[in-house]
């Protein structure tokens, strides 16, 4: 008999995240009121900006793609009991892999490049994650500390490379040369036009399809393969894992490398797709938001996809907001995004005891009423 009330699944994965979101929006509404704007109008503009027209949809889903990758990256490591704060750096270094393969192997035909660039991204991202993973597994250095530090190292390394090595001669901006047109990831709009669907242009590209495939693969890996089972065992109870012959250290390294590879796919969306070149700081905080996405999505691919959509909406709708309502500055938009991250991620369990208590009371009342009716 467990002493803690076990909440039904629909409360845990449905009601609680929605309540957290409502709370975040309510507090955001108060902030909006405080600067003298109408919160209802703000929500309308935000929703219209995110979903109101097809270009908006394109941008929303383009942001969503990045969040799916970084959210999945966090979730896979989390299933092994690891807090991977390093998705930002892993994605950044993944970008290096993508850029190098696309720039130096540009003789490859496009279908081959699709695979090679993905492998290059994964190899660089996983390789970058391997070092903190090894230090955690074999030397006991805490993964949170090392991955944070590796974000800074990645950032410095990339600045050096972009300024001194990858910058084309004569260019003044710290960025790589453009990737050859025929090697970039095709735009979703141009793909859609093959099927006779016309839409306004947006940076949404083939990597969105990758994101969906990656979600399904992660779901299969974690819950439907023996490797995922081993990763979860090692994460939940390393003593039980050792007893079962599952070596925890090896699985820590494995989970972190998968995590790093997933994070690196942000580079496919950005470097191969949207920007078509390696830019400084192209990761733009997606790695960190991925933590909130994964926590809100309860570390499950389906939840992560929905949470990613929400954050994609906030990013795109927020940009529209700053444009439409001048008093809502860009900083204001960041405040709203921050509140959502705060309530859904960091304080995700704040309402749990209260909701649990109410559920318990209602349940007992329901049982008692049923019993009294039966005895009557």
């Amino acid at each position: 008999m467990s002493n803690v009330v076990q909440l039904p699944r629909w409360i845990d994965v449905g009601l609680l995240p929605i309540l957290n979101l409502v709370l975040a929006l309510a507090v955001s509404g108060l902030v909006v009121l405080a600067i003298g704007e109408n919160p209802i109008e703000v929500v309308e503009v935000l929703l219209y900006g995110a979903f109101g027209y097809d270009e908006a949809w394109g941008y929303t889903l383009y942001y969503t793609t990045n969040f799916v990758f970084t959210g999945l990256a966090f979730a896979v490591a989390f299933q092994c009991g690891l807090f991977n704060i390093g998705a930002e750096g892993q994605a950044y270094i993944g970008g290096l892999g993508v850029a190098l393969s696309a720039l130096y192997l540009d003789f490859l035909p496009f279908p081959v490049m699709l695979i090679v660039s993905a492998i290059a991204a994964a190899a660089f991202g996983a390789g970058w994650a391997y070092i903190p993973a090894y230090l955690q597994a074999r030397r006991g250095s805490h993964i949170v500390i090392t991955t944070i530090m590796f974000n800074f190292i990645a950032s410095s390394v990339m600045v050096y490379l972009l300024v001194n090595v990858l910058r084309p001669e004569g260019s003044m901006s710290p960025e790589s040369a453009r990737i050859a047109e025929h090697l970039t990831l095709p735009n979703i709009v141009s793909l859609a036009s093959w099927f006779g669907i016309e839409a306004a242009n947006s940076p949404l590209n083939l990597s969105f399809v990758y994101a969906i495939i990656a979600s399904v693969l992660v779901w299969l890996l974690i819950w439907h393969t023996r490797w995922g089972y081993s990763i979860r065992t090692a994460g939940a109870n390393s003593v039980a894992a050792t007893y079962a012959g599952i070596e925890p250290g090896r699985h820590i390294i494995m989970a972190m490398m998968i995590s790093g590879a997933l994070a690196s796919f942000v580079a496919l969306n950005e470097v191969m797709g949207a920007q078509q070149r390696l830019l400084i700081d192209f990761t733009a905080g997606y790695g960190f938001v991925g933590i909130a996405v994964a926590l809100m999505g309860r570390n499950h691919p389906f939840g992560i996809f929905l949470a990613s959509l929400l954050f994609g909406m906030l990013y795109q709708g927020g940009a529209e907001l700053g444009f439409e309502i001048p008093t809502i500055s860009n900083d204001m938009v960041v405040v709203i995004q921050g509140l959502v991250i705060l309530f859904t991620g960091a304080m995700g369990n704040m309402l749990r005891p209260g909701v649990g208590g109410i559920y318990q009371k209602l349940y007992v009342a329901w049982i008692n009423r049923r019993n009294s009716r039966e005895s009557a």
Partner: protein
Amino acid sequence: MHQMHGTGETGAVQPAIELRGIDKRFGAVHANKEIDLKVDKGTIHGIVGENGAGKSTLMSILYGFYQADGGTIHVDGKLCDIKGSEDAIAAGIGMVHQHFMLVETFSVLENVILGVEGGAVLRDGVDKARVELERLEREYSLDIDPDAIVGDLSVGLQQRVEILKALYRGAEILILDEPTGVLTPQEADHLFRILATLKEQGKTVVLITHKLREIMAATDNVSVMRQGAMVADRKTAQTSPEELSELMVGRRVLLRLEKGEANPAATVLHVNNLCVDNAQGVRKVKNASFTVRAGEIVGIAGVSGNGQSELLEALGGIRSASEGSVLLNDQDVTPGKGVDAAELRKRGVAHVPEDRHRMAMVTGFTAKEAAILGYEDDPAYNKGILLDWNAISKATANMMSEFDVRPDDPDLKAANFSGGNQQKLVLAREIMRDPELLLVGQPTRGVDIGAIEFIHKRIVAMRDAGKAVLLVSVELDEIMSLADRILVMCDGVIIGEVSAAEANERILGLMMAGVDPNQAKAAEGQA
């Protein structure tokens, strides 16, 4: 079944505690069903029941950790609304938890005054507390140094600090939740002497336990709980362990195992001069040499912490050997290089570890996930690269029906099963692989009486099927009733061997204390 006890002698005196119609649910679990209980003043009152019978929930309601959904609590005849432990303390109720609530780096005195320091200046409170503490210690012969650091004290002494804490807060009624689970037999005896002193001084003691021997030895009255209901109240003098166990389980229980003669065959396990170090490099097993043959149960007895755990873990492939060798059917399986738990499983070694929660299962997993732990690579559980959850569900359902695991739901979280049912699931997982060698540690720790009987029968059945069984247990009763040969460990050394026929508690006890077996037997002969 409801028969009220002991109003004859105490006459019109109010009971110290009276519970009326206490009812409590946790979600779908009806933990306490309309409980009535009377505890007379100045008595030691036992509450027995299997794990999950609702004893701890009832006491947690009394102490204010949970709120009852219905019913009332009366202390000294007065209706009490206990909303938190402060209310319980104010009503004169003190509780000694199974897991101590002590700050290990603080001294005894500091722990005792924690939360009742009295004023902003610590000095005044400490001086007053010291005087009061010394008085309490004298009065109840608790015998403990107020300035000792709690972390340095033995478990038995830490428990006395908990009792002191309760008395210092003016407790007239003391609740002890499974107090002897962590104590050696000598410490337990001392505890019961303290409880007797408390009773003489007019305090009331409520003793929660599942050990019937303690109930018979220490209590005046006893109440029995089963499946959330209070099923009987008895005067201890007028009942027997047999009656109590029947009341607890709801049917007749065999307290003594019946088994036939062993027919040992070829040697399966051969351990040669095995040495095992712990993580700090301290040698825990020193030159252990012994054999286990097919068709016999070899028991390893010893006071907890004398190297048995490390020996078992090494044989299970969890720890490496520092020196020596292990042969399984004449093949080298010395744990360490290349031989881990997974490898040993492939070679037919099944291992039921001592610590169920920490090692045998992942409590957050479902039963079917727990049922494949260690065997997740088995082709029967996989279809290509994916796990075959249908096959796993079927296999789990099969284990559950074979080993009578209740509820028989493969999708239920492992943590939601009672201790006995968790253990039966672990045994099913290991035994149904039909291993050559079964390693079993503490098979019935935290397991209820009904399940103990079942688990013992299954272990004997393994022996009778011609398998080798190595049993580690700190329960002497268990070792003596199951094992055909008994090895005794003390300080990492196997002191000696006793056959089941010549074993008794005194010989084993002497050997566990490190006395040479021949001397132990000679001492027994003189006695």
